[in-house]
C-alpha cells in the first residue's frame, strides 16, 4: 500500500518537475530573444560607427560635408540642456516628495488627489510634455521656441514625476523608528527630515535622480516638437540661445541622404550609449554600495 502511494507521489512530482522545466525554458527563451535583439543592435551600431568614432566627432561642428562634420555642438548642447534640466527638476522634485511623504496629511482628499496625479504623470507620453512646453512658451511670448530654456523645461517636466516618485520611495524606506527617535529627543519635524530622514534616503534619491537624468539625456520627442532639429554650428551660449542635443543630432543625421551621415549617426549613438550606460552603472553602484539593512 505504502509502495503505491510512493509511486503516485513520485509520478506527480516528476510531472510538476516537467511543467516547471518547460516554464523555465520559456522564460529563458524570452530572455534570450530580448537579449539577442539588444546584442544585434549594439554590434551592428558598433560595426557601423566605429570607423567614424574619432576625435573629429568631438571637436567638429555639424557640416554639410559628412567628412568634416562632428557632434561637438550636440555633445555640449546635451550636457548644457541636461544640467539645466537637472537644476530645474531635482530641487522641485525632492521638495515635493518631502512634502508629500513627511508633511502632507494623507487623510485629506486633495493630497491623495495630487499623489494619484503624479503617478499618472509618470506614464504620460514624452511628446505631450513637448506640447505643454510649446503652450507655456507661447503664453510667455517666446517667438523662437527652440531655446535651451524651453528644451530644459520640457525635459524637467518630463522627469519631475519620476524624481518625485523615486524620492518618495527612498524616504518611505527609512524606518519610522528613526523619525520617532529623533522627535522623541525634542527635534522638530523639519530637523528630523533634514538631519535624519533625508540623509538616510540620499542613496535612493541619488539612484532615482541619475536614472531620471539619463532619461532626459536620451529623449528626443519633446525637443523635436519645439523645433530643435536645426543646423547649429556654435557652442551653447545661454539659456535663450538655440541648441541641439545628441538624440536630435542623431535623428537629423539618420534622415540625411548620404551614407556617410548614417555612419556618423552610428558613431554618435556609440557615444550616447556609453554615457547612458555609465550613468546607469553609477546609479546601480550607488544603490549597492549604500544599501542599508535596517
Amino acid at each position, binding site marked *: 500500500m505504502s509502495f503505491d502511494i510512493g509511486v503516485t507521489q513520485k509520478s506527480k512530482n516528476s510531472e510538476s518537475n516537467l511543467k516547471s522545466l518547460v516554464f523555465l525554458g520559456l522564460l529563458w527563451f524570452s530572455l534570450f530573444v530580448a537579449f539577442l535583439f539588444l546584442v544585434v543592435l549594439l554590434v551592428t551600431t558598433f560595426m557601423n560607427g566605429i570607423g567614424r568614432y574619432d576625435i573629429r566627432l568631438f571637436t567638429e561642428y555639424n557640416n554639410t560635408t559628412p567628412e568634416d562634420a562632428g557632434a561637438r555642438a550636440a555633445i555640449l548642447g546635451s550636457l548644457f540642456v541636461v544640467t539645466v534640466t537637472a537644476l530645474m527638476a531635482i530641487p522641485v522634485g525632492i521638495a515635493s516628495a518631502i512634502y508629500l511623504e513627511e508633511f502632507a496629511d494623507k487623510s485629506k482628499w486633495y493630497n491623495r488627489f495630487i499623489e494619484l496625479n503624479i503617478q499618472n504623470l509618470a506614464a504620460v507620453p514624452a511628446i505631450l510634455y513637448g506640447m505643454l512646453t510649446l503652450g507655456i512658451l507661447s503664453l510667455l511670448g517666446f517667438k523662437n521656441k527652440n531655446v535651451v530654456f524651453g528644451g530644459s523645461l520640457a525635459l524637467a517636466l518630463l522627469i519631475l514625476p519620476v524624481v518625485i516618485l523615486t524620492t518618495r520611495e527612498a524616504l518611505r524606506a527609512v524606518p519610522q523608528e528613526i523619525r520617532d527617535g*529623533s522627535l*522623541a*529627543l525634542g527635534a522638530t519635524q523639519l530637523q528630523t527630515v533634514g538631519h535624519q530622514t533625508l540623509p538616510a534616503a540620499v542613496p535612493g534619491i541619488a539612484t532615482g535622480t541619475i536614472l531620471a537624468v539619463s532619461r532626459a539625456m536620451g529623449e528626443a520627442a519633446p525637443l523635436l516638437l519645439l523645433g530643435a532639429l536645426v543646423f547649429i554650428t556654435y557652442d551653447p551660449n545661454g539659456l535663450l540661445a538655440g541648441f541641439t542635443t545628441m538624440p536630435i543630432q542623431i535623428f537629423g543625421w539618420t534622415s540625411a541622404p548620404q551614407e556617410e551621415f548614417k555612419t556618423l549617426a552610428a558613431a554618435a549613438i556609440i557615444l550616447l550609449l556609453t554615457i547612458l550606460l555609465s550613468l546607469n552603472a553609477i546609479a546601480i553602484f550607488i544603490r549597492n554600495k549604500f544599501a542599508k539593512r535596517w
Partner: protein
Amino acid sequence: MTELNGRTKQMPVRHSDRVAVFNPIMEINNLDVYYGNFHAVRDASLEIGRNQITAFIGPSGCGKSTVLRCLNRTNDLVPGARVAGKINYRGHDLYGSEVDPIEVRRRIGMVFQKPNPFPKSIFDNIAYGPRVTGMKMNKTETEDLVEHALTRAGLWSEVKDKLDQSGFALSGGQQQRLCIARAIAVEPDILLMDEPCASLDPIATALIEDLMIELVSDYTVVIVTHNMQQAARVSDRTAFFSAQVDDHGQRYGHLVEVDLTTKIFTNPSDTRTEDYISGRFG
C-alpha cells in the same frame, strides 16, 4: 557643564527609601484617548511619583502604551489621535494651548521597544539631541557630554574606543543602552520606556534593569512592560491596565488600579488584577 562633569556616580537608592516618599511629578486626570472614532482609552487617572519607577502592566490592547505615549505628546504625531482630560506636569497643563509639544518631548524622553539608533556614528547618536535642541557647546563640551551620557548608560567602557563606528555595529542590548544614553544626553526630567527589553536576551535585560534602578536617583522613569517579573523587580508603583468591552462590543483600554508594586503583587484590591498577576488570564 561643570555641574555635569562634577556629578559623581551616585549609589542606587534602596527600593524601600524610594517608596517612602511619594512626590507626584505628574498627575493624570480622567484621560481619554481617541484614534479617529475609536475611543481607545477611557477615563484613566493616576499619578507618577518623582524619582520613582512606575510600571504599566496589562494584556495586549489594554492601552498602556497609548497612555505612555500621551505623557510626552508622542501621540500628537499619530494622525487622528485626540486626547481629552488633563495631564498636569510640574503645575503645567501638558496639553495646554501655550505648551510646545517639542519642548515637552525634550523634557520627557522616550526609549522605544525596538532599539532605534540613528544611522550615524555612536558619537553622533548621542550628540544629536543636544545639537538639535539648541544646546550651544564647543567640541570639548560635546565630548564631555557624550562621555557622561554613555557612562551614565553603562556603555562607556564598551564603546569608548569605537565612538566613530556606526550605532548599528553594536549588539541589540548595547543599541538599547545607546538609545537610553541618547535620551539622557538632553538631560530630560522623565524617561518613558515602552517595553525597552522586549527584543533583548535575559543578560541584556538584566543590564537595562540595573540601569533603570541606577537612573531613577536622577530621573523619573515610567516603563511599559509585558514582563510581570520585570515590573515586580524594578518598579516602585505599578499601574494595571485591562482591556474591556463596552455595550457596543468595542474594546477599550481601562486603568484598573494603581498602587505600590508590593501591594499589587501581593494583595491587589481588584480581582481582575489578581487574576492577571496569578496568570489566570492574559
